């Protein structure tokens, strides 16, 4: 019942808002280049379905590749930090600098360095850079959060550092990592969009570029259609990562338990 409400309430709200939107646009004769009606947006979506899907796929690919690169690099560096205080002290400040520098400001530089002939690599790199830091910092924190008594128990039984890493630190860090992945998934989409905006005409073909293009041509219905797809993509990424989190933690972690009864 509660679950059903969770689904039905937002759906009812959406129908109400869309209905009001359709009504106000028709009733007030708002021109389509200012605010197109939902029906017009749906028509734009249907009419350009093939090309919009191709753009969606482009953006999705950049997002996923960036996300996976960030995941691998962030987790690997976090493991390095957990094994070597020296490496952590030497490298952490640079990770922070990378994090605090606005990505929009570095994006043009990355595009130039990687080169417009490898445009997808450049876009992926930008998406990865945005998503990297939450993975690194949360995983590093998680690896450090192992229960002290369990750690002593491991030492008592002569565990090697790899046994400790694999059997104790990694499972302890898993909820932290999964939480970071949900944030990083959204961030890598933002990174992909920013990268497409910066890359500009002729090179990028993803959803973000379709938005820029439709804006320039005053095809606002098309702009909304692309925007709706982009939002759906973000929601889908979040949903998949939440599902993954639930599947991996459902048996033991407090966060998953509270949702059960």
């Amino acid at each position, binding site marked *: 019942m509660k679950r059903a409400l969770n689904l039905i309430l937002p759906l009812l709200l959406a129908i109400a808002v869309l209905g009001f939107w359709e009504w106000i646009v028709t009733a007030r004769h708002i021109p389509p280049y200012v605010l197109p009606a939902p029906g017009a947006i749906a028509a734009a979506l249907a009419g350009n379905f093939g090309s919009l899907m191709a753009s969606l796929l482009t953006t999705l690919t950049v997002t996923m590749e960036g996300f996976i690169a960030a995941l691998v690099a962030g987790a690997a560096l976090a493991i390095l930090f957990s094994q070597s205080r020296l490496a952590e002290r030497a490298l952490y400040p640079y990770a922070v600098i990378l994090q605090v520098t606005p990505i929009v400001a570095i994006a043009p530089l990355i595009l130039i360095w990687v080169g417009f002939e490898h445009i997808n690599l450049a876009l992926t790199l930008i998406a990865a850079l945005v998503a990297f830091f939450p993975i690194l910092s949360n995983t590093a924190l998680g690896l450090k959060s192992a*229960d002290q*008594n*369990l750690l*002593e*128990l*491991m*030492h*008592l*039984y*002569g*565990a090697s550092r790899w*046994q400790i890493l694999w*059997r*104790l630190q990694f*499972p302890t860090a*898993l909820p932290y990592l999964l939480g970071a992945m949900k944030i990083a998934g959204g961030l890598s989409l933002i990174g992909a969009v920013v990268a497409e905006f910066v890359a500009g005409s002729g090179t990028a073909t993803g959803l973000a570029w379709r938005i820029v293009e439709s804006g320039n041509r005053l095809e606002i219905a098309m702009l909304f259609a692309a925007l709706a797809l982009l939002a759906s993509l973000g929601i889908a990424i979040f949903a998949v990562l939440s599902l993954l989190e639930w599947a991996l933690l459902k*048996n*033991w*972690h407090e966060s998953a*338990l509270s949702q059960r009864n």
Partner: protein
Amino acid sequence: MIRAGGVTKTFAGGTIALDNLDFTIAPGEFVTLLGPSGCGKSTALRLIANLIQPNSGTITFDGPAPAIGFVFQEPTLMPWARAIENVRLPLDLQSVPHAQGNSSAAQALARLGLSGFEQSYPRELSGGMKMRVSLARALVARPKLLLLDEPFAALDEAARFALNDDLIALAKQDGITVIFVTHSLAEAAYLSDRVLVMTPRPGKVAADIALAQPATRNAAWRVTPGFAALQAQIALSQGGAE
């Protein structure tokens, strides 16, 4: 034989936890460390387990250090692992083959009355059951020395009494030397062959009391004058220590 000679432990920050701790413990003995909070009981156990080093003094064994089992005040189980996986941990760390580890772990759980709960996660178990899993884990690798740091302090009386009896039986069966830490005078009187009463911080041994335990201990024993006499014996020397 375990010998502590002049063991002193000072922590960073200057807390002197133990000052000149001396004792000997014979094989198969059940010895309780009894003392007020902060007198260094946990520190003594961690020193014996070689998890920390003394500032001075030595702890020696006859021959190489024995296999040790350790039980903490909390069950200290891995929440992501099933009961049997938790119990198997010491064997896994020693690279015991999986099948063999599983059967040893199942056997250890059975000895603690937890047959049928092998596949349960810690959160599915009661406090007393979790402590039983913890005890099974400590026993699974066949230790010669069992160190218990106020293991039953968080349990209700019924669970504590049941675990007291199981502990006595298991230690006797396996011929294990036990060092047991507690605040509770009654628990010390019920379990121990010997009680080492410690002074408040910095801890040292104030009294070393041998207790004459009856052949069988059970719930009925707890209400006899004999048991009351054992408690009085500890209480008197405790009074003398302070």
